[in-house]
């Protein structure tokens, strides 16, 4: 069944920024680390993100995706991480064993701890149900990005983009630069879901119209896309009758969201939080399965690679401590829930040990606001507050909480008012 078996301290699954940072951190703590990725090149999704805007947070420099990845790859190799590329992990079990395949050979790896960093995948047309034929020329924005930037394949001449997420916006500019005509970006919500700076530099710079509160109601064309019908939508997302208009195009890109890639996690019985579609973790990023940690986009979707990497760093240090014996496990009675209150969609981590003294909370608000006050409450007392200028569901917010008292046994709640 398997051709070989090996053992190591820490296995990290996924070599994107989160996995690279986790592996580096664990190796720097003295653990033997094996980093496994199914691609031939480390760096994850960053290799295809050739635009700039990365690294300001992590390195104080503006870098492109591949440059950002390169720095993390170097750091990992210098720290002594063993990288197994071109290696697909197909099984993960509760007792911290993985089965992986490299050029047809299957091997089993037993680890003292495991970090999950498998990233995410894109939502597709099937998941959002647009009526019409099934012609060629419909791509997810990330697929289009890979074809354009990695494979040198031209995807089309007249393009409509559904969804105003950052990947779609970046692709609007990229395809314009490649000589295609991007006719419109269509967004169902009354506000764009990408960063303001991408609206400016990717759409406004090239006079690409953005239709807010609109969606694609029909895709036309038999063999290849010929046009889409676009219509206004009301507050509950229903099409408004007689608001339709047709935009001729040969390509439709979907930039309608990302979902954490948690098939392996489910196999191991890891609990998934419906609000994030990622694992439920504690303050050290450990899942409900002892010794298995999670970070980056597989845990919850990050808009910035810098933050995915920072989370990886924390998870990697926890995993090393677990593997090397410096980890004090908290019993269930000492753990309290962290919940999303009014105005907040989710919070990571989902629980914490009551004696935690420093805690980093990552969360998203439910609706855009010009100003918001974020409060972290424990029972009746307030642990921290923060004022935000412009809160937006598309921008993840992070907040640190420091305390020298044990948390109230009712747990913590994060709310936005």
């Amino acid at each position, binding site marked *: 069944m398997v051709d070989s078996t090996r053992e190591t301290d820490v296995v990290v699954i996924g070599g994107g920024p989160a996995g690279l940072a986790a592996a580096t951190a664990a190796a720097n703590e003295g653990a033997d680390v094996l980093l496994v990725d199914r691609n031939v090149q480390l760096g994850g999704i960053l290799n295809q993100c*050739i635009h700039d805007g990365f690294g*300001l947070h992590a390195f104080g420099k503006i870098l*492109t995706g591949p440059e950002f990845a*390169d720095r993390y790859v170097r750091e990992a190799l210098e720290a002594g991480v063993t990288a197994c590329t071109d290696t697909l992990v197909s099984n993960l079990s509760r007792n911290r064993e993985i089965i992986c395949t490299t050029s047809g050979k299957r091997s089993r790896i037993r680890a003292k701890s495991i970090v999950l960093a498998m990233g995410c995948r894109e939502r597709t047309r099937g998941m959002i149900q647009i009526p019409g034929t099934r012609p060629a020329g419909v791509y997810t924005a990330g697929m289009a990005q890979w074809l*354009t*930037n990695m494979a*040198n394949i031209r995807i089309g001449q007249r393009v409509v983009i559904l969804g105003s997420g950052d990947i779609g916006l970046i692709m609007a500019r990229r395809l314009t630069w490649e000589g295609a005509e991007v006719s419109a970006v269509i967004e169902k919500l009354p506000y764009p879901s990408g960063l*303001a*700076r991408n609206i400016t530099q990717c759409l406004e*710079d090239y006079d690409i119209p953005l239709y807010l509160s609109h969606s694609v109601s029909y895709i036309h064309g038999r063999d290849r896309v010929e046009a889409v019908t676009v219509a206004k939508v009301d507050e509950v997302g229903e099409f408004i009758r007689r608001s339709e208009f047709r935009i001729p195009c040969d390509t439709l890109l979907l930039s309608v969201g990302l979902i954490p890639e948690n098939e392996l996690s489910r196999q191991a019985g890891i609990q998934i939080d419906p609000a994030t579609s990622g694992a439920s973790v504690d303050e050290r990023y450990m899942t409900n399965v002892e010794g298995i940690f999670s970070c980056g986009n597989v845990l919850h979707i990050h808009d910035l690679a810098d933050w995915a990497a920072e989370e990886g760093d924390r998870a990697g240090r926890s995993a090393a401590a677990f593997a090397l014996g410096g980890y004090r496990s908290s019993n269930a009675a000492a753990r309290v829930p962290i919940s999303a209150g009014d105005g907040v969609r989710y919070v990571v981590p989902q629980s914490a040990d009551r004696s935690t003294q420093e805690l980093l909370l990552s969360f998203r608000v439910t609706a855009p606001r010009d100003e918001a006050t974020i409060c972290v409450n424990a029972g009746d007392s307030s642990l921290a507050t923060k004022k935000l200028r412009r809160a937006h569901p598309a921008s993840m917010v992070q907040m640190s909480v420091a305390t020298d008292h044990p948390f109230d046994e009712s747990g913590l709640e994060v709310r936005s008012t």
Partner: protein
Amino acid sequence: MTTRIVTCILCPNGCELEVGYQGEPSEETLHVDGNRCPKGKHYALDELLDPKRTLTTSVLVLGGEQPLISVKTATPISRALVSKARSEIQGAVARAPVAIGDVILANVAGTGVDVVVTRGTHLRHEHGK
């Protein structure tokens, strides 16, 4: 007083800058509100006088493990010259091996700025050894 709203693109904050000036925009006449850091003011002035953008794209490579390498202008260039720079870069072909930081094209579109590699590639036969 002339006023304008400018979105700063220098970092993910994307501050909405309220920009006002009397007469010609300059370091002295410009008043900027809404910037969360000092870089916003310089950005606003640039945006009024000569907007600048970093061009990032890919270039064909011969003999590499991959068909494309990715490149960028080493610093932001005048937005008015992005299109010219793009056509110059489109004509370029690189030869593997190519490494991060290599200059693929010097002084693109007469801007004085070089085009540098952001993702390189090894020679093809090096693969699988």
